[in-house]
């Protein structure tokens, strides 16, 4: 067995065979994956190689694959992400829902073929149902139709509305603050949307006059 293994290692490219076992060990797989990632990508447009450097949250959620991360780790990821949430300096959390609808519709931005000169979209309809009139919506995330209405928000500036309004801001800013391995991008934390854009998306979800809440 040992002899056969040595022979096999000699034949195979050294970079991809770090050990010799019937099935590759976790260590072999990690090493080979890191070599494969490093050798396969190049920078293009605004998509530089630093995009392959994972922060602690992405590392833990990648490692978990289709399983969930353990409860303690999830909690620490959520705490770390919650600390990144920044509220707007003027204390105003809701902008214009009509602008928010445009941002929700817009799926452009941050690919290697996009220009950084144009504003990014939120890609919201890619994954969520939002207003009732848009039939072309995705199903990766939950429906957000009647988001504010279902949560009893009749006046977003009222004290009673503050917990849900603040939570929604935090969720848009950094979704991982509330769900460690959420599939949703961290729109504020990652600089995908500006503070003003997030205010407009907030209005789309929470303004009683928004089509979302009719």
């Amino acid at each position, binding site marked *: 067995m040992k002899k056969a293994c040595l022979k*096999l290692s000699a*034949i*195979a*490219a050294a970079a*991809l*065979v770090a050990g*010799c076992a019937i*099935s*590759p060990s976790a260590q*072999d*797989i*990690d090493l*080979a*994956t890191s*070599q*494969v*990632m490093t*050798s*396969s*990508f*190049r*920078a*293009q447009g605004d*998509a*530089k*190689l630093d*995009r*392959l*450097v*994972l922060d602690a*949250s*992405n590392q833990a*959620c*990648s490692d*978990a*694959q*289709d399983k969930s991360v353990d409860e303690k780790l999830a909690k620490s990821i959520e705490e770390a992400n919650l600390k990144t949430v920044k509220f707007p300096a003027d204390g105003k959390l809701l902008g214009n829902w009509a602008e928010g609808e445009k941002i929700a519709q817009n799926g452009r931005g*941050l*690919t*290697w*073929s996009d220009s950084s000169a144009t504003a990014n979209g939120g890609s919201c*309809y*890619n*994954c969520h149902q939002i207003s009732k009139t848009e*039939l*072309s*919506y*995705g*199903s*990766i995330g939950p429906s957000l139709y009647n988001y504010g209405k279902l949560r009893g928000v009749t006046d977003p500036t009222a004290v009673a509305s503050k917990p849900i309004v603040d939570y929604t801001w935090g969720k848009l800013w950094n979704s*991982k603050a509330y769900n460690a391995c959420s*599939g949703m*991008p*961290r729109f504020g934390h*990652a*600089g*995908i949307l500006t503070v003003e854009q997030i205010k407009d998306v907030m209005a789309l979800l929470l303004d009683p006059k928004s089509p979302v809440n009719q």
Partner: protein
Amino acid sequence: MKKYLVTALVGFAAVVLGSSVLAQKTTAEGIAEYRAMLADGNPAELYEAKGEGLWKQARGPKNASLDKCDLGKGAGVVKGAFVELPRYFADTQRVQDLESRLLTCMEQLQGFNAAEIAKTRFGDGEQKTMESLVAYISGESRDMAFNLPQKHTQEKLMYEVGKKVFYLRGGPMDFSCASCHGEDNKRIRLQDLPNLTKQPGASTGFGSWPAYRVSAGDLWSMQRRLNDCYRQQRFPYPGYASDVTIALGVYMGVNSKGGVSTAPALKR
């Protein structure tokens, strides 16, 4: 030939006139009708015919055909090769997918510069040749079941690497392949997303590429499909026939075991 052109034109007209025609029906009805129209004839068959000619034609600096190219089942054997790729090749000591293997053959047999072809933009020069070759070769395995070999250590390792890469979240939006293709019955907008982690999703997705893409008006290879996935994932640019794309091919191909290949299929 004529039939395909007509189909392509009808499809084009449906796209152009879509808004006014569809206004009289519901959007969903219109889309269902458009999809049914597309299923009628597949322009990919034109690429298959062209690819067969290119496979047999003496080309390149060495003025040789690809008749002696070994796609894994012996020199010149095309039938059934596609549903066993990617696999390990002893001569290159690498796991290779269809396109990286074709690069090897085009360099060794025909004298082309593989690195140069890998750098060429999709749809240009010898990349155009590649579109027809992959259409022909995949078409020769149509309706055959995927059965990728997993005996060699490197084949096993590349499966595991592919799995890790599939779940690897990165870029400004924290996306991985699994963000879209890790669960059943998900959509982006109205586009259904196959779950590539198991059957039947794996062979439904992986097994339909290469495909003629109506929205692009061109035949896309698996390499081009993966390249555009990574673009939308907001990742940097994966090299043509790079190991990351081959590892993903092994992962999806092994997951497709038993499922039938429909490539080259027809896509929106």
